[in-house]
């Protein structure tokens, strides 16, 4: 041991290789040039301060962050953590001042830590996140040695899910305690007053400590910058590129998200949490620490009762739990549907465990699309609706199927297959099926309220039809009617009187009948057609019976057109 110390004193700026050769040479998997570059970046750091940070439990990655060391740190994914510690170790123990004050025993312990025999403690700022140390979803502790290894684990999860993807967005969610503390550096005042003493202040406390101890040093304001990359951003810098390489796709804004969610038991024990977060959210991100804030920082440092600067920081005994998930944001497939059956409801309709009707448009369409996209779920949205016993004919009704977490986005060929499959069932037909962007929503909503709907009804009247009747009906344009809430829906809708417009009507005689005829009409959206024909005990007025001066009944109703611009083939 003593020998090692002597050699250190001698080398003094000579080849660092000599230092390393003192103990067994660990395999440096990253290229020597990379290690060299790291050393260059680290060279300007104040050794005493770095040693200090290490001693209070800050990890090497966070130290690099706080001091703004970038470069090769993030661009070489196979740098082992042990390499990083080794480089820092050299920095510290090359410093004469430190060596003078270091006992031989302490030195050797520090020095051999790069052999990874003694694992560094869990970082008190990032809770092990940047050290790639976590509990996996089986609650087993996992330590990854370099960014590449972590990326490989993530890559495995993604491959298992089997999404067909060209790119991905990367999201990281970390325990608020870390975020809050990073933000708190800027939003100090409000935050401090609300934090219970038990909570570890993480980065903020460290900053206070550093400012109090080294604030007057010449290097402080240059190297220890108040704004530095956050834990989240650092993790992204480490992981995104090796992950992209491993999956052989690009990292760019995408509908496919890979998400790392870190959670920590301690972080959720805060009670004044929301207060702090609310206040900090009021400030814009990226605000630099102004002189006023610095003053208040110093003021607080002097305040004995302020718990925030209590050091040593509480030792963190457990890393975070990490959950790796990936999902695709919902995709939308839209088109128009026709319904030929009078026994198929638009949506799933089940009363007391019994299905009403033999099937539903929703299930026929959505149930075919979802498996073809290999999605988890689907939601069916249509522009308006029709009763189970009303057919939807003509141009069809616009609809959107929202597929959650689709593994495949269907190609044009696949879309044609889906169309064919649905149309084969004969009860329902789809037209103009295609994948639409989120603008599909706007198209749908716009269609519901404003547009006109066209119908054809088989009507019976209690006396023979006259030619005069045809003329009278035809002459009525933009006729206002008043409809009280139909009795058949009165149990679940508000009792109101709604004014509706019948735009035009036309009677088509039926060859073999004098009392039956086809009534074609075009009405405002939301008009109850059946009630307009039979009058609903006089609660819809005027009605066909009142116009023709007799009793009228409706036998059948078909929707013949939903006038909407969108969702048509070009």
């Amino acid at each position, binding site marked *: 041991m003593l020998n090692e110390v002597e050699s250190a004193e001698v080398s003094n700026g000579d080849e660092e290789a000599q230092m390393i050769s003192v103990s067994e040479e660990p395999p440096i998997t990253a290229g020597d040039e990379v290690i060299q570059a790291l050393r260059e970046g680290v060279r300007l750091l104040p050794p005493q301060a770095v040693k200090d940070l290490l001693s209070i439990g800050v990890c090497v990655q966070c130290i690099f962050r706080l001091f703004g060391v970038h470069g090769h740190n993030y661009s070489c994914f196979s740098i082992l953590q042990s390499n990083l510690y080794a480089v820092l170790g050299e920095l510290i123990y090359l410093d004469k001042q430190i060596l003078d004050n270091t006992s031989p025993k302490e030195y050797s312990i520090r020095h051999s830590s790069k052999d990874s025999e003694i694992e560094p403690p869990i970082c008190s700022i990032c809770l092990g996140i940047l050290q790639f140390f976590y509990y996996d979803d089986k609650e087993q502790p996992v330590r990854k040695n370099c960014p590449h290894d972590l990326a490989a684990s993530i890559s495995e999860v993604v491959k298992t899910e089997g999404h067909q993807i060209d790119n991905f967005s990367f999201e990281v969610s970390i325990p608020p305690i870390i975020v809050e503390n990073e933000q708190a550096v800027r939003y100090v005042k409000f935050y401090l007053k609300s934090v219970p003493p038990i909570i570890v202040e993480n980065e903020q406390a460290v900053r206070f400590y550093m400012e109090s101890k080294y604030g007057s040093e010449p290097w402080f304001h240059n190297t220890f910058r108040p704004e530095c990359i956050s834990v989240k951003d650092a993790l992204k810098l480490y992981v995104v590129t090796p992950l992209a390489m491993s999956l052989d796709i690009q990292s760019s804004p995408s509908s496919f998200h890979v998400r790392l969610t870190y959670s920590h038991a301690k972080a959720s024990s805060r009670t004044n949490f929301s207060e702090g977060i609310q206040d900090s959210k009021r400030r814009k991100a990226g605000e630099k620490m102004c002189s006023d804030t610095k003053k208040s920082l110093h003021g607080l440092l002097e305040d004995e009762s302020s718990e925030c600067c209590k050091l040593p920081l509480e030792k963190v005994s457990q890393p975070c739990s990490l959950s790796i998930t990936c999902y695709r944001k919902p995709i939308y497939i839209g088109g128009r549907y026709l319904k030929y059956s009078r026994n198929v409801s638009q949506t799933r309709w089940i009363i007391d465990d019994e299905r009403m009707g033999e099937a539903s448009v929703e299930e026929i369409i959505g149930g075919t699309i979802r498996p073809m996209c290999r999605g988890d779920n689907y939601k069916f949205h249509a522009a308006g609706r029709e009763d189970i016993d009303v057919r939807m*004919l003509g141009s069809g009704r616009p609809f959107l199927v929202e597929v959650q977490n689709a593994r495949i986005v269907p190609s044009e060929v696949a879309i044609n297959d889906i169309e064919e499959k649905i149309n084969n069932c004969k009860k329902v037909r789809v037209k103009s099926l295609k994948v639409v962007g989120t603008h599909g929503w706007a198209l749908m909503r716009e269609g519901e309220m404003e547009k006109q709907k066209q119908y*054809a009804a088989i009507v*019976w009247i209690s006396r023979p039809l006259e030619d005069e009747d045809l003329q009278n009906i035809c002459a009525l344009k933009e006729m206002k009617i008043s409809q009280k809430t139909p*009795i058949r829906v*009165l149990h679940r809708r508000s009792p109101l009187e709604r004014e509706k417009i019948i735009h035009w009507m036309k009677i088509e005689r*039926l060859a073999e009948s004098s009392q039956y005829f086809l009534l074609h009409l075009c009405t405002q959206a939301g008009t109850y057609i059946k009630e307009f024909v039979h009058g609903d005990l*006089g609660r819809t007025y005027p009605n066909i019976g009142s116009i023709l001066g007799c009793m009228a*009944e409706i036998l059948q109703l*078909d929707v*013949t057109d939903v006038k909407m611009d969108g969702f048509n083939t070009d």
Partner: protein
Amino acid sequence: MMNGHNSESDHTKILEDEELQRLLVPDVCHLPLTPPSAVDSNFVCYFAPDFIKPGHDQYVYRHANGLCVIGLAPMHVALQDKGGVTAVDFNVGKFDRSGIKVTGKRKRNAQHFEHNTALCKVCTNDNSYIVRCCVKGSLLEVNDRLIKQPKLLNTSANREGYIAIIMPKPADWLKIKASLIGPEDYKNLRALS
């Protein structure tokens, strides 16, 4: 080229229209001579003969959704009077029934009435008769058209001349149902053809 394209899509449109027409036009011989009325199709009709008082025959049309339409049955004494019904007054009991305003899906402000609570008074030339709820429940609506057009009771008491709409609780409906009779039984009882 352009023309050719146009006529193709026009052709498709014509075919679609023809298909639509084919779907819309029914086979008349399959249609019933006289179809069931909207009331018959959507409600189950019950009768309460001699309700509280002799000759006060009322009907209760119950919809599948539980709502009950109350009205005067064909053999109600008021409808037998010479000259028929001349006036209808909803101002009976504590307040005017035609003044209630029920709002919202939950039907707030609806009055809860017993089966024998008075709904309105029906007047003829010689007499006046009280019409009652028949069913215990919330009063959703009264037919205020009867105020201006009391003759509706003479022409269509079973349709446009209905009296009121009541929403009973399921348990209350079952209680009263036991004392009601169906259309056939009512016809036989009153010796109607």
